[in-house]
């Protein structure tokens, strides 16, 4: 029996992870020891401190990392090879933490519900029962959402930084399980919320199974689960090629489910609609960033030498996803569902960027890589998405958030600022120039075109046209349609938390659209993955 050696941890580089998970544990302790009434403020503070601390640590680490030994990328391989802290990881960490901070702001909002949070008073009380009414009358609040949020963020940080398939799987579960719970905690329309959570959980568990099976097959092929080891095995071209292909396909199923790509997108509209909107806002941006980070790392690092077999597969998936998302968004009559299908379409656009992978030698000097394009797109889409969902929380009628299209008619006349900002986010998602979305779209389409996937780009252009239609239609609804007589929604006064979140997203969307240079330089400096 081999002697036990103590694992050697890079405490400094892994600091952001430690801070987030540490804060989450503190949150659990707060939940255990503080009386119910006085938990909220400490929880919010712990969460914010943890996230801001982790963000500072991320920046610190990013400023400090040096070129890895092979010279192509900067960073370190930490935790005995299971966590890779390189440029793309750090960029995504920063991004996810920013979305986390914005999400915390939305979670903590209490003015919209008359002094209560958007989460169920007592999740265990059956909807419509006396227990629920009592919980509501007593003004109970689930403050567990904050530690759950932190655990989810922790998983998201680990996911794109994993150095082997097992860590990736663990991260996947750590990020998913809290999200399943959070989705089921809506204060209003609880049955819808619980249904969403159950659906998300069942399908998510199923897709995790696919991922594990894929990991097993790839292990069978390569004899290792570490991504770098798989890369070497693939380059060496061991026998049993079929095993590898099946493994890639199954791993892809697991990841494509998380990003909501067709044909695994079915959960997206239900979950986005049923979940509390604050959760949807956070989830739509951060999960996408984390999951695409993992997709990129898996395909670019482990299966780089096998590009010719996964690029066509992802190209087909991208085409279906874009068209399906765009077409189904047109027939929606609910804002949250429309945004959900638009998220599906954006997944397709992101995949268009992913397939634009090229060898380092194929790129011209000064040309940016597909990795950079996708990272930038995640940034632009995330801010627009958080902002749009945050605004959805403001538009309310007597029954809470009013998400039906009818309630939004004529909003531009009643609240020009809210409608205007929402229209701006929609225009950014539609990719109109001078908004962030345009630069992002341009970046991913160019990568795919450079790699020779011009048919996919043409489809992407076509689906952009489809997407433009439903965004514009909603703008027409808000500004140029007479208000429906049977009840329209009004904009509720929100506290600084929501207003601040929207303001940050708006500023980011404007700045990234007009002067994307600094952020693009940041993305460029992030460099390549460590292989």
């Amino acid at each position: 029996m081999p002697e036990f050696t103590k694992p050697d941890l890079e405490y400094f580089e892994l600091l952001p992870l430690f801070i987030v998970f540490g804060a989450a544990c503190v949150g659990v302790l707060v939940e255990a020891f503080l009386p119910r009434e006085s938990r909220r403020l400490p929880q919010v503070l712990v969460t914010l401190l943890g996230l801001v601390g982790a963000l500072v640590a991320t920046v610190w680490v990013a400023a400090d990392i040096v070129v890895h030994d092979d010279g192509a990328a900067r960073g370190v391989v930490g935790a005995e090879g299971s966590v890779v802290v390189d440029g793309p990881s750090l960029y995504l960490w920063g991004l996810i933490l920013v979305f986390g901070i914005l999400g915390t702001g939305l979670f903590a909002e209490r003015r919209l519900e008359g002094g209560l949070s958007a989460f169920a008073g007592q999740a265990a009380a059956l909807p419509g029962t006396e227990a629920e009414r009592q919980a509501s009358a007593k003004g109970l609040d689930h403050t567990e959402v904050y530690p759950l949020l932190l655990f989810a963020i922790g998983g998201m940080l680990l996911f794109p930084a994993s150095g082997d398939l097992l860590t990736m799987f663990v991260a996947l579960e750590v990020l998913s399980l809290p999200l399943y719970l959070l989705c089921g905690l809506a204060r209003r329309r609880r049955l819808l919320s619980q249904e969403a959570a159950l659906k998300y959980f069942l399908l998510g568990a199923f897709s995790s199974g696919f991922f594990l099976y894929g990991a097993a097959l790839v292990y069978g092929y390569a004899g290792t689960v570490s991504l770098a080891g798989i890369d070497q095995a693939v380059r060496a071209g061991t026998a049993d090629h079929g095993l590898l292909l099946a493994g890639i396909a199954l791993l892809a199923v697991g990841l494509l489910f998380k990003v909501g790509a067709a044909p695994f997108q079915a959960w997206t509209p239900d979950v986005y609609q049923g979940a509390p909107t604050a959760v949807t806002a956070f989830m739509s941006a951060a999960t996408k960033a984390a999951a695409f980070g993992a997709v990129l790392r898996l395909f670019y690092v482990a299966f780089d030498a096998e590009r010719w077999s996964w690029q066509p597969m992802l190209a087909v998936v991208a085409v279906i996803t874009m068209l399906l998302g765009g077409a189904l968004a047109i027939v929606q009559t609910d804002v949250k569902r429309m945004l959900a299908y638009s998220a599906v379409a954006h997944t397709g656009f992101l995949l268009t960027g992913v397939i634009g992978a090229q060898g380092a030698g194929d790129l011209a000097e000064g040309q940016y890589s597909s990795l950079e394009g996708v990272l930038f797109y995640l940034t632009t889409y995330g801010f627009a998405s958080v902002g749009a969902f945050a605004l959805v929380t403001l538009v309310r009628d007597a029954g809470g958030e009013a998400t039906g299209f009818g309630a939004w008619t004529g909003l531009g006349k009643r609240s020009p600022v809210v409608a205007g900002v929402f229209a701006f986010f929609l225009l950014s998602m539609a990719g109109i120039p001078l908004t962030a979305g345009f630069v992002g779209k341009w970046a991913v389409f160019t990568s795919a075109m450079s790699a020779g996937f011009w048919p996919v780009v043409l489809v992407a252009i076509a689906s952009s046209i489809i997407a433009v239609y439903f965004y514009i239609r909603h703008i027409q609804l808000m500004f140029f349609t007479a208000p429906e007589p049977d009840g329209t929604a009004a904009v509720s006064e929100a506290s600084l938390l929501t207003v601040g979140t929207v303001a940050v997203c708006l500023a980011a969307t404007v700045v990234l659209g007009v002067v994307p240079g600094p952020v693009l330089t940041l993305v460029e400096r992030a460099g390549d993955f460590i292989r």
Partner: protein
Amino acid sequence: MLSTLILLPLVGAVVVALAPKSLSKLLGAGIAAATLVVGVVAAFSYDLDKGMQLEETYTWIEAFGVHYALGLDGLGLLMVLLTVALVPLVLAAEWFTADDPEGGGARAFVAWTLALEGLSLAVFCATDVFLFYVVFEATLIPAYFLVGGFGRAGRGAAATKFLMFQLAGGLVLLASVIGLYVVSAEQGEPSYLLSDLAALDISTDAGRWLFIGFFVAFAVKAPLFPVHTWLADTTEKATPGTSVLLVCVLDKIGTFGMLRFCLGIFPEASEWATPVVITLALISIVYGALVAIGQDDVLRLIGLTSLSHFGFIVLGIFAMSSQGGTGAILYMVNHGIGTAALFLVAGYVYHRRGTTLISEMGGIEKATPVLAGLFLVAGLATLGLPGLSPFVSEFLVLLSAFDYAWYVGAIAVTGIVLAAMYVLWMYQRTFTGPTPAAVEGTADVDAREIGAVAPLMLALVLFGFYPAPLLDVANPFTESLLAHVGVEDEAPDVPPSDETHAETEGDH
């Protein structure tokens, strides 16, 4: 200089949006006038023989090879002057109608108009394809809110149709813009500067595909048959002032783009596409005129006449001769002036009669003789009466059409005959006839209304008799463009500009 020209109206739009409502119109008029002054100053510092000038180049997005690069050549200068001149007139003409309680309010109208002005100016000055694309698309947003927010019932749907067509065209263009990046990156450091792109060695196939993307977008914009269907709906529902901005300024971007980008970057592909493009142009000329004859809505009718006119412009551009090129550029200016006058005067009629239906008008001539006179002059300009400026350009374009092939010229000439029909018949039905009792006592045009169209009328007459200033600006541009394309005129007997002089002066 050019940055000031662009930023002034843009910043002005923000100021108007933030300032109190009572000040909106005054502020707007002041900013539009100031922009006009800057435009005129730019024109005076412009040197006729120097090609691209007043250039400003800064790196904007380094990773994409994108520059904030502005410059002005003959074509750009004429378009800039047209834009800065039309916007104050539109504001003056819509002074009271902008307050319409049904609409979005004067503040919104003025702010969006200024934003549209600034972005359009940026389009005409951009010398970087990426920058051009950005502002090209961005102009649509103010235009969308102008169409959707002001005008008649059904404008919301019209605005959406307008925007969908334009954005669809724009996205097709995006594909080509991306393709240019790829081509540019393959040949060294990627750059979007027009000067770098014109020097690129684009393979025949790639050039043709990219050309198609550019051309489709500009054809939607211009508009050209068969992607013109948004035009009539939009002009029908929008206010006349908005229509002026759309048809006389924004649509010029289409033909402007064909000259600058299609011919400038893809000379080979442009020549290759000539037969198809000229066919489309001829269809637009005849079809637009025929459909215009059948219209009962005066604003719709004017919109459709523009389809015919844009057909002429495109015909001139793709006839690939110096008369054609210069004629097309002149046509763009003259069409802007003439159609703007027609739209604005038609707007005056609409506000007096409360209807745009030609069949319900008639007989207003006696009550408002000055209005009738203005309408007639604008109409005659549209049909190309010698002595008014559109004649000169129409003549040049026809000359080039006959040069290209006799049957092309023959078909194009029918457009002129049809133009006489739709204009005169429209005038007859709108103004002449017995005066109905309801119309008696209708006030004639007041000083403000005359003031808004008088400069246009003056320009129509001035450039009709003396087009030399326009020709002097347009000719060097056409020459260098055709030299770039590699086309030479077939030994003209007389230099084109002298020939026009003789024609024009012989006619009055």
